[in-house]
């Protein structure tokens, strides 16, 4: 069977009320001028003040236990909050990785001391994390990481260079995947994760500018960085399982199909009230139909995750379809409402938003697992079901 049987999608009543609260909050933030309505706001919208105000409302670390500063809310409530933020193009980049990945990872794998030290600060919007996984020779093939973690008296020493480390120049900590056992036979064995202070001696951050000139990515050099025993996250040698166990969360969320929605909203805003052709209506309707279907799929994965399943193949489906949609949306909007993309136009104006979304379009189908690799996972999943 190739059928994906998702449970019926229904959000609980508290989630509906929460959506209205988030919309009110966003309306207030718009009046403050903090929301640009730009595409890709989770990737490049870094605004620590916005993150702190969001945290004050209890909307960072929502699913964490209260004793670690969290709010013990369900994954679907978190889903509602983040989809509202992304659809609005709100600047959620500062806390994004902490909230989505680092926090849950520390909760699952960390020591009591690590949890009490990092989680409350994350949930308060005061502590921001990066993820140091990829390297020069380890992109899609993550098991090829060469950064070394050596045992030294009293702790560990890390040596190597991470690449594409987003936000390493502005964030506080990074979770680093390193090889701690060169002799391990299986290439997936002998990997471990560490929490590294991005201001520690021996850490050197070197920018890699995007094709738009923006500074998001970095080389993250670890020149013999000395760490205490308590820097190890999870069990020594268990890094691969820890990293891959969380991929469904990372791949199926609303950031995998909503990254460019603010551009469509901007186009519709410009068209509303004007004479619109049937062709324009149909093209917009087609995007809306696809958006709606993608959201149903993504929510289905969220519900499966909440129910304790491991919907890895379904998550890959969401990511491949959703990120292709993000790029297709940009191209469709060009046809629906032609304009010269202009990065120098007034920030937030349609030509500027178009330029921004367009210049980011190569990333959509690359990050979080290159789509060609994901399609391999999906095709294998298809065989297993047949």
């Amino acid at each position: 069977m190739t059928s994906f049987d998702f449970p019926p999608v229904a959000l609980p009543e508290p989630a509906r009320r929460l959506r209205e609260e988030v919309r009110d909050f966003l309306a207030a933030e718009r009046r403050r001028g903090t929301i640009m309505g730009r595409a890709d706001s989770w990737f490049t919208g870094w605004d620590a003040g916005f993150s702190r105000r969001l945290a004050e409302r209890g909307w960072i670390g929502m699913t964490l236990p209260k004793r670690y500063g969290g709010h013990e809310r369900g994954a679907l409530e978190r889903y509602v909050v983040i989809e509202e933020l992304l659809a609005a193009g709100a600047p959620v980049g500062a806390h994004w990785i902490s909230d989505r990945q680092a926090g849950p990872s520390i909760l699952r794998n960390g020591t009591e001391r690590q949890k009490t030290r990092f989680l409350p600060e994350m949930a308060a919007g005061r502590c921001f994390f990066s993820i140091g996984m990829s390297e020069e020779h380890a992109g899609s093939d993550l098991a090829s990481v060469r950064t070394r973690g050596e045992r030294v008296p009293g702790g560990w020493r890390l040596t190597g260079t991470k690449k594409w480390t987003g936000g390493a120049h502005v964030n506080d900590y990074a979770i680093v995947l390193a090889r701690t056992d060169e002799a391990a036979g299986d290439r997936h064995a002998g990997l471990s994760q560490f929490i590294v202070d991005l201001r520690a001696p021996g850490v050197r951050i070197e920018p890699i500018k995007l094709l738009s000139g923006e500074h998001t990515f970095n080389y993250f050099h670890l020149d013999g960085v000395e760490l205490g025993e308590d820097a190890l996250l999870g069990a020594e040698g268990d890094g691969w399982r820890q990293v891959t166990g969380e991929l469904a969360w990372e791949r199926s969320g609303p950031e995998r199909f909503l990254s460019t929605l603010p551009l469509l909203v901007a186009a519709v805003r410009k068209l509303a009230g004007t004479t619109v052709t049937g062709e324009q209506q149909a093209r917009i309707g087609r995007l809306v139909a696809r958006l709606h279907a993608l959201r149903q799929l993504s929510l289905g994965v969220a519900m499966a995750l909440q129910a304790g399943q491991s919907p890895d193949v379904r998550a890959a489906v969401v990511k491949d379809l959703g990120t292709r949609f993000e790029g297709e949306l940009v191209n469709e909007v060009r046809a629906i409402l032609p304009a010269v993309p202009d990065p120098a136009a007034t920030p937030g104006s349609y030509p500027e938003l178009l330029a921004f979304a367009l210049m980011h379009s190569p990333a959509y189908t690359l990050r979080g697992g290159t789509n060609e690799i994901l399609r391999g996972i999906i095709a294998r999943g298809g065989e297993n079901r047949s």
Partner: protein
Amino acid sequence: MTSVFAELSTDDVVAAPADSAPGLWRAVAAALPAPEATTGELAAVARDAGYHATPGPVAETLLVARPVLTAAGLPVPDGPLSYATGDLRVSYAHPDPESRVGPFGAAGTDHTLRVSGTLHRVPWARMCSEIVVVGDAPFGPVAFLLDPGDATLRPGGNLAGEPRDTLALTDVEIPAHRVRATSRALSAETALRAALARAVLIAGAAQRCAELTIQHTATREQFGRPLRHFQAVKQEEAKLIEETALLRAAVDAAVTGLGTSRAEFTVAAAKAQASDSIAEITRIAHQLHGAIGFTELSSLRFVTTRLWSWRDEDGSEQHWSQRLGRQVLGTDADRLWPLVTATT
């Protein structure tokens, strides 16, 4: 769920839908769910009929005709049913000589009607015991039962050979007990139900299309290994599986949305998406099947020819996308996201 259609929908049966549908209906009728079943249960059966390319008006009867008759307060006859809307001339059969003559003529002493006009491409009309017709009478929106024997039937078919018959009505009398005054809302609901029924069939057939393709690439060998071992094949096969899952998600949402305030949006989105996905799904399925899929040597044609027809029937992707677009553009930009999220 064991399928009532699986065993009966052999290649010979599916290849000649017009000839095999009446016999097949007699075989499955008793196993079909009762009109009281939930939309979800009815849709599951209709999707299964789509999956097996089962000949006969299963989706038409279960998801459109029976519920529309019930909603209109008309009796639900046994037997296969279909539905039609069209530009008909409808007048009172028994004008009241006492009434004042208005723009629509005299009022009637009862709702017995005389109807003329053409109903185009009615699904399975030649085998149906009754057709539920939704239109306009002098007194407003109307639903009535038409015995196809009272019309002149011109046979027609779609790409898969499924009957799509044209019914010419010449001064056909419809007795009052087969007529009900209804509402604009019921006319709109009929169109939504028809689109949903078609989308549910598409979801079933699309799934079959994907499964046949996966079977083929797993067994067919070239250069000494199964096709599925080639990266290029995997990439396309994944896209096929994905697009099938996407349209299924849209259709499931519409099944849930029917009968709620979200029916209009979810059904429009489902039929728009289901129809839109077919180009990609059938392209990949045929490409990966190679020449065999293009011929009668493969069962693939049973689903792809139906998909190519069903995407246009009961509103194409263009039609439903435009309706969605009008909803989005009718107000202002800030309605777009609320429209999408109001579903759940």
